[in-house]
């Protein structure tokens, strides 16, 4: 039996189960930075949840911070819905003239913005969610620079969100005890029951599989 400190199963599980706090901090840092760079009143990351066809606030900086994380909006209506559906960014200079935005978002969040910059979070040809920046106070950058910077933050957020999503799916697999990911967990658990030559042989087999699958 492998010593507790060397066991793989807890390492696999802990890598997933203990990641929530770090992931939340990562997403928060992205919206904090976006809000600071754009001198905006608010910035947020919304994750698309296909199961309920909704966008959920994952991180909020500025207006609404601490209040609306976890709130959900229908994914297929309004500006955020278009950005998600089309995979295209949009900048609206007077967003409250959109009656649906006023009802769905502003009333819910309690904040009434004027300017909305929204970008899709594109990762590996998939749109994972939407980045919003509200009411940037002044344009600090050269023409074209703002849109480019918005895209860079969106790219950063997309990578982070893909990590978060993968971690949550792995966590769900471990907690349910089913699914393809469980095979990895079972192999880790089986190796933990071995020692000596059999464990070494098992690890060599995994290393060979690693080379084969690359």
């Amino acid at each position, binding site marked *: 039996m492998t010593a507790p400190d060397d066991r793989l199963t807890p390492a696999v599980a802990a890598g997933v189960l203990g990641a929530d706090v770090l992931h939340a901090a990562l997403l928060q840092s992205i919206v904090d930075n976006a809000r600071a760079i754009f001198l905006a009143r608010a910035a947020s990351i919304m994750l698309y949840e296909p199961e309920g066809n909704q966008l959920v606030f994952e991180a909020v900086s500025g207006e609404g911070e601490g209040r609306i994380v976890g709130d959900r909006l229908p994914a297929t209506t309004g500006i955020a819905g278009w950005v998600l*559906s089309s*995979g295209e960014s949009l900048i609206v*200079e007077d*967003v409250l003239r959109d009656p*649906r935005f006023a009802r769905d978002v502003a009333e819910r969040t309690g904040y009434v913005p004027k300017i909305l910059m929204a970008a899709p979070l594109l990762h590996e040809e998939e749109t994972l969610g939407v980045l919003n920046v509200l009411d940037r106070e002044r344009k600090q950058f050269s023409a*074209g620079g703002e849109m480019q910077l918005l895209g860079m933050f969106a790219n950063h957020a997309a990578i982070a969100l893909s990590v978060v999503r993968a971690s949550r799916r792995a966590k769900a697999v471990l907690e349910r005890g089913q699914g393809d990911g469980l095979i990895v967990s079972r192999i880790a658990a089986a190796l933990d029951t071995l020692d000596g030559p059999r464990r070494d042989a098992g690890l060599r087999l995994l290393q060979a599989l690693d080379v084969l699958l690359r």
Partner: protein
Amino acid sequence: MAEDDRVNEPVLPAWSLEREAALRTLLRSPFPLPDARAWAWEGSTGKGVRVCVVDSGVDGTHPSVGGVERAVVVINDEHGGHSIVPDEEGDLFGHGSACAGIIRSLAPDCEIHSVRTLGRDLTGAGAILIAGIAWAIDEGYDIVNLSLSTTKSQFVPELHELADRAYFKNTVLVSAAHNMPVSSYPWRFPAVVSVGSHSGTDPLEYYASADPPVEFLARGVDVELAWLEHSTIRATGNSFATPHIAGIAALTLAKHPGLTPFELKSLLRAAANNVRSAA
């Protein structure tokens, strides 16, 4: 540049230029058309030209849109394919109406049709977009406004084939460049008319791009747009530059029916604000 000067600087999407930079990019046309714009569309209202907006649907009742001849939607059917059925829901997002409103403002007498490819279900969005474009081409529309694109590489071969099919059937696909510097399609194909933005405010002002794959730069910054529930908003994006070119193309085709896509594209280039005739 003084700090105050930057306050009012426009925000430009990717594949776009400030108006002043576009003006400085002087190009030459070999055609002896010293007043190409007048020859191309002066006096035209777009009458007789059928324009299809493939987008989120179009609200024909919006005052700026002024009616839609026909509105259909692409849906997933039970056999794993797609069906085209009448669109009972209309514009779910506002974007399609925005594009239609721009086209109407430039070519008031053209026919505007709508194919909705964005819906409440995001499943199979790329395949639905392709089905919508294919239907529009088969229906023989003169112009198809595509202020949409897909980043999914699996759809590139089909989209390429559709772009070529449209080209040879004399259907002009006017396609928006992505606002972010990502690879998306079909705007990158030479068989379509690809559009980015400039920062000017004149709706008939457009430029030939010296930076492919974007071919034209039209008004796409701080554009007043038709939007949901008869509202209007002001927004920026290459998707709003695209219907400007579609509208100008409609004016041109109404005055010169039967132009092929390559003839139309050559004429549009010759008529651009930064192109000078060899004559």
